[in-house]
């Protein structure tokens, strides 16, 4: 059905109230009745403006030719010329989706550094689009958006997967809005509805208290950002060497709009919390700033990163980029050790999906014990030094 709009003659009184409301000046009075001109965009504003319900609008069913869109794409993310681990995770889930759909899996690699291409060709994918321009070596919102949108319009993939990182979550909404298509943030599970080729996207909302299943049935491509460290990494398998397609985009630096003046590494001891496999976190139970050395020592021993509750960040014991929780970072390590942290809901939402949670707290009623895999009701000043001591001994006996 096409869009249809008509004036019901019996009801129209010729009051003309709809005329000034029409944004396109597409209504005139003719023989004391409203008449709608062909430049009408079927926005429906006049329908609401009419006090006599004299305008009737029937909208076209959403029919988009979805069949033009085929194939699964993964966007490779690079930081400092290195491929970020989430890219390999996207490749494994992308392979799975592409096989279910019976289509090719392509990797989108932006920049002119060719050294990553050979490495990536070993993974089980069919095609690498190498969008070659030195302006793309460093992430810039506008240039990336333009390069990707241009290629999507030409090649028409049905699914695009992007890592839910600070780059991916800056880029994907810009791309999706320009393409006027659906985007689902921070997915933790992806499946295919074989009947209609829809991507079934599952993601947490309300800080993980609720899960939502989201689809985008009338739009293509379907774009999803995927939370890092959830999907397993693809392993390099040589069988199908990916074909490499060179793309030369037309970009200019002026279009970047945002100028990057500098990139400053945070303190080198700070491991990327979101990438860490083990996190040892300290809270107010530490008593004072100096005692964070205990947390650092345990983290170093286990090869992990240091996290913190907001209470100790606010107290100035540790810089804010260590903060885990609702207003800090969301982490999902294999092992999370919470030391002297009560486990307020705002802290929990940032770490509750960790694989194994150890809580050390002297208060048996602390809410952190509700989600801890292993709870230790002890004074941390006694327990942690002892634990460190035992771990060191165990390590020494191994070497």
């Amino acid at each position, binding site marked *: 059905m096409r869009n249809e709009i008509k004036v019901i003659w019996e009801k129209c009184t010729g009051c003309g109230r709809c005329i000034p409301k029409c944004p396109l000046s597409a209504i005139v009075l003719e023989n004391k009745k409203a008449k709608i001109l062909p430049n009408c*965009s079927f*926005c429906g*504003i006049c329908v*609401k*403006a009419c006090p006599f319900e004299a305008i009737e609008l029937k909208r076209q069913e959403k029919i988009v030719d979805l069949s033009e869109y085929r194939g699964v794409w993964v966007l490779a993310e690079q930081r400092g010329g290195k491929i970020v681990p989430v890219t390999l995770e996207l490749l494994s889930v992308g392979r799975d989706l592409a096989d279910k759909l019976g289509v090719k899996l392509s990797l989108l690699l932006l920049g002119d550094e060719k050294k990553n291409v050979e490495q990536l060709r070993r993974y089980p994918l069919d095609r690498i689009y190498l969008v070659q321009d030195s302006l793309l070596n460093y992430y810039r919102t506008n240039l990336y958006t333009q390069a990707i949108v241009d290629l999507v319009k030409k090649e028409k993939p049905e699914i695009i997967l992007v890592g839910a*990182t*600070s780059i991916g*979550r*800056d880029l994907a*909404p*810009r791309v*999706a*809005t320009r393409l006027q298509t*659906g*985007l*689902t*943030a921070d997915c933790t599970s992806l499946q295919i509805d074989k009947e209609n080729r829809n991507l079934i996207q599952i993601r947490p*909302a*309300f*800080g993980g*208290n*609720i*899960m*939502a*299943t*989201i*689809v*985008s049935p009338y*739009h293509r491509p379907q774009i999803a950002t995927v939370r890092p460290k959830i999907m397993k990494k693809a392993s390099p398998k040589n069988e199908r060497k990916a074909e490499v397609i060179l793309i030369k985009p037309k970009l200019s630096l002026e279009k970047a*709009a*945002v*100028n*990057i*003046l*500098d*990139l*400053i*590494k*945070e303190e080198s001891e*700070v491991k990327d*919390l979101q990438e860490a496999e083990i996190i040892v976190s300290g809270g107010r139970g530490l008593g004072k700033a100096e005692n964070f050395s205990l947390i650092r020592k345990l983290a170093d021993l286990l090869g992990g990163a240091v996290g913190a509750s907001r209470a100790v960040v606010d107290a100035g014991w540790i810089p804010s*980029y260590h903060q885990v929780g*609702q207003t800090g970072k969301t982490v999902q390590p*294999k092992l999370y050790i919470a030391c002297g942290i009560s486990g307020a*809901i705002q802290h929990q939402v940032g770490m509750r999906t960790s694989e*194994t*949670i*150890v809580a050390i707290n002297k208060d*048996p009623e602390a809410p952190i014990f*509700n*989600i*801890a895999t*292993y*709870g*230790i009701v*002890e004074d941390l000043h006694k*327990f942690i030094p002892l634990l460190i001591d*035992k*771990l060191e001994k*165990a390590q020494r006996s191994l070497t």
Partner: protein
Amino acid sequence: MDIIVCIKQVPDTEEIQKVKINPQTNTIVRESIKSIINPFDENAIEEALRIKEKNSAFVTVISMGPPQAEEALRKALAMGADKAIILSDPSFAGSDTLATSYTLASAIKKIGNFDLILLGKQAIDGDTAQVGPGVAEWLQIPQITYVRKIQIDGRMVRAERSLEDSFELVEANLPALVTVTKEINEPRYPSLRGLLKAKATKIIHWTSQDLQVDLKKVGLDGSATQVIRIFTPEPPSHGEILTGSVSQKADKLIKKLKKKNLI
């Protein structure tokens, strides 16, 4: 200069645990849940006010939502914002981030004058962080996301943008859109004078007609994504409290972690 801040009313954090699903309708039961301004949006308001104090600026706050979102706008006025607009219309219901950003951008275009648009980095109910870049795209202006420091320098905004393990120093010409993290500032409490002023200020109400939006692009109709199911995740397992002397507990823990290959 003219600053526009987009704020969203969300369920209070303390109450998020109480968020329940109605199994019949598959919708979220929101009654009896207290609402607050999205925490990051309070940082956005605060930053606008600080810029206003330094450079002199006119601060407009806008929010799309049901009529009770006026509460959030009233608080923003009490903090010191100059003008508040609520975008409320039955046709806006069910908007995803594409439709929301279109509606907000339409309101911003109607306001007309803007140099800086501030948003929170993400809303704590949906956690998407998509509305900011979406609005910037609809308006065709530069965006800087995850910002922890802003400096206005003539017609230029300079910012520190947080990445995973580093930060970028960037600059863009105004008008630009910036989304802020909580590190950027500590939001103020409304003063008594502010509260009185806010009470006396009229909140402007714009509907889809006022915005002259394309009704195909707002609300459910304008949404490219559809939520087909919501459900409660598996409750976290209660786990095990380790017993014994301090030393025994430490030994038990090491054994368990070794068994799981974690250490």
